[in-house]
């Protein structure tokens, strides 16, 4: 898959296009330090192993309800989050475990929320789809398709209102892009010049319906054209390309140029949720994607072939990540269930 820059709307965004093209040129293999690439690798692998473990715990009946795994899409959130600063805010939909880990939330407390335990981020009252961290500026975790987009626009509004230099990174899927409130948000964000990056994680399927079967126009990065919002399509399977596109987009929003859309072309390996028989796509399609475009495998091969790191070192990294995830799973299983009194807390704040 190759990155395709969008045909741009008008000259005002021409500059942005140039920047992105330039950044693409700069993103030659060795333009990233070893340390940066290792961070990418670590973060992506943590999400991959965490999600695999969550799937396993789900199969054991330790996680209930809905559980939407992020496996395959790791490069998107890792590449983007590498660009944020402490003031920036993050919001996403219900496929949210990867985003939590990428913002630095504790895997133990995320997993404990998945198992519905007291030690979870929401004390077991949120579950897979509803976790938050004020400390990490992570604003959820929202279960209604499309609803996180106006809320994210409101986070961007708070940056504008407080004039604090922050940017909101608002993630949502291809399925959400057909919701009316997404366009209501685009309109207000453009009208008020809000600092927000809309990140469409196009994994090709909204639940079981392909983009082609759900969307009259499938160039999702162009969905802001009516509002004068520039958009860029990015190879979301390549963490370096994601990083550069994210850097340009965040710079754009931070420098008072208003909202911008990034369409991350990505792929989820697992079903929509745990109960998805995946009849809507062929096994070959999935196998080909994994074999040719896996974000983690590709990065490892690149780093090995450029002699940055040898196989032994990678094995050590893999082992450490595995241990972290096992520790999280153990913590999540050993934590106690919330006290029955917890049922009645956090309904309203006391005045």
């Amino acid at each position, binding site marked *: 898959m190759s990155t395709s820059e969008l045909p741009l709307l008008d000259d005002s965004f021409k500059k942005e296009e140039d920047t992105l093209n330039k950044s693409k040129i700069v993103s030659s293999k060795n333009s990233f330090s070893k340390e940066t690439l290792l961070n990418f690798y670590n973060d992506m692998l943590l999400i991959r192993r965490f999600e695999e473990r969550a799937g396993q715990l789900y199969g054991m009946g330790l996680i209930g309800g809905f559980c939407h795994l992020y496996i395959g899409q790791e490069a998107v959130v890792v590449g983007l989050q590498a660009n944020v600063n402490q003031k920036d805010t993050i919001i996403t939909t219900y496929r949210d475990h990867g985003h939590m880990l990428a913002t630095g939330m504790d895997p133990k407390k995320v997993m404990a929320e998945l198992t519905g335990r007291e030690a979870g*981020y929401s004390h077991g009252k949120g579950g897979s789809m509803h976790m*938050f961290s*004020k400390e990490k500026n992570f604003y959820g975790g929202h279960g209604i398709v499309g609803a996180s987009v*106006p809320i994210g*626009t409101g*986070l961007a509004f*708070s940056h504008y209102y407080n004039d604090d230099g922050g940017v909101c990174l608002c993630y949502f899927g291809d399925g959400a892009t057909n919701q009316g409130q997404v366009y*209501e948000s685009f309109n207000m964000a453009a009208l008020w010049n809000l600092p927000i990056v809309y990140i469409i994680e196009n994994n090709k399927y909204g639940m079981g319906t392909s983009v082609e079967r759900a969307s009259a126009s499938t160039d999702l990065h162009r969905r802001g054209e009516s509002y004068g919002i520039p958009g860029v399509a990015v190879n979301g399977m390549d963490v370096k390309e994601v990083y550069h596109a994210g850097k340009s987009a965040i710079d754009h929003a931070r420098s008072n140029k208003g909202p911008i859309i990034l369409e991350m072309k990505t792929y989820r390996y697992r079903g929509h949720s745990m109960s998805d028989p995946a009849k809507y796509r062929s096994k070959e399609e999935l196998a080909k994607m994994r074999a040719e475009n896996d974000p983690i495998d590709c990065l490892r091969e690149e780093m090995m072939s450029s002699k940055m790191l040898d196989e032994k070192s990678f094995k050590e990294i893999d082992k450490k990540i595995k241990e972290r995830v096992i520790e999280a799973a153990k913590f999540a299983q050993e934590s106690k269930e919330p006290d029955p009194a917890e049922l009645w807390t956090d309904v*309203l704040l006391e005045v």
Partner: protein
Amino acid sequence: METEILMPALSPTMKEGKLAKWLVSEGEKVSAGDLIAEIETDKATMELEAVDDGILKKILITEGTDSVEVNTPIGLLSDNDSNEKEVSKISKTDKKNILKEKIPVISKKEESASKTVIRDSNNHRTEVHVKENSVDHDSVEITVREALRDAMAEEMRVNKNVFLMGEEVAEYQGAYKVSQGLLEEFGSKRVIDTPITENGFTGLGVGAAFAGLRPIVEFMTFNFAMQAIDHIINSAAKTLYMSGGQMGCPIVFRGPNGAASRVGAQHSQCYASWYSHVPGHKVVSPWSGSDAKGLLKSSIRDPNPVIFLENELLYGQKFDVPTSEDFLVPIGKAKIEREGSDITITAFSIMVGKALSAADQLSKMGISAEVINLRTLRPLDIDTIITSVQKTNHCISCEEGFPYSGIGAEISSQIMEKAFDWLDAPVKRITGKDVPMPYAANLEKLALPQIEDIINAVNVILSKS
């Protein structure tokens, strides 16, 4: 031939207005469509067009006159050719009768009871005595609309995180003129005209509240909030719980609720029971000016989402309202507006006025009714209701909304659970009829609960027991 130019009704609820300016003078020729006068309603200044060609023969109401009732002749238009001279049909004394005296603004420290004029749907005026807890405060007689505006302005002055957003709140000064003057004082960053996209701007407000701002989201009416109810319930009310207490949402959703006047089914519905059903937010519904000001200030200060249900027909009503910036009405406390011993009448919003009128008339029949203004619907002040029922042993609940699963159903159920043995008769619900709101004047009146319905129900209940 002469035609009377009548004071026009320029909104569904307009009963009177100010003749601000004549744009033509006596003897001047006008054509149909020409602008002839400026009329100031409580909501806006509008221009009046001539509907016929002719000569403005006589100006009957001079410019600058306040409180000119709708359909009052304000001028006489004669045919261009006509020379008839029977112009002064309306004498000065007639004119005086047409104009209501302007009520002077009062500011009395110990004024604890004042007369308030209440109109029923037939436009009958009743004066009732209203007790306000203004003993410790200087008070001034202002409209509910002004009380709401003052509440927002005062809170915006003390907390820079408070801002107002909604359709027409800024440059238009509010669709119902509630936000009048706020744009001028606070600027366009804090008084924000939104596009007509309720779902979007409600979600935006919720996000801003998560981030620590204190938005006041105005719905032009709560009918339009149905577009946004997912954000009100799923995003605003549930997130504190879903986040284990991390993510509060200090936001006020406010606007007129319930029936206005002749605006049909899609614009006339009471949402009190809808919102009261849901945990995670508070639901407030003021009646008087003090309710409006004190409860709105408390709502803006509250760290939780508050649904603030106003009533368009009350916006123009005047009440004594404390002027102190410290004046607050606590959320969750009902107010006994009138003490009585024979029957308890619960009501909220516009129905409080009707209940008080009914109580006045009942007292002439020798029946002593206690009227409780609920003020807050969630959390409901059930203790005040139960205490009253233990005294009166009878209860009627009044609301404009539909009967099915309504506020009255909840009140009657809680009384049954908590004070069953104190009841001498079943609780009776006075509600709107179980039909979408009709447009025709007579049908609309039938669909809405009237003062007579309350009086009749009281008589039936008391005669049975």
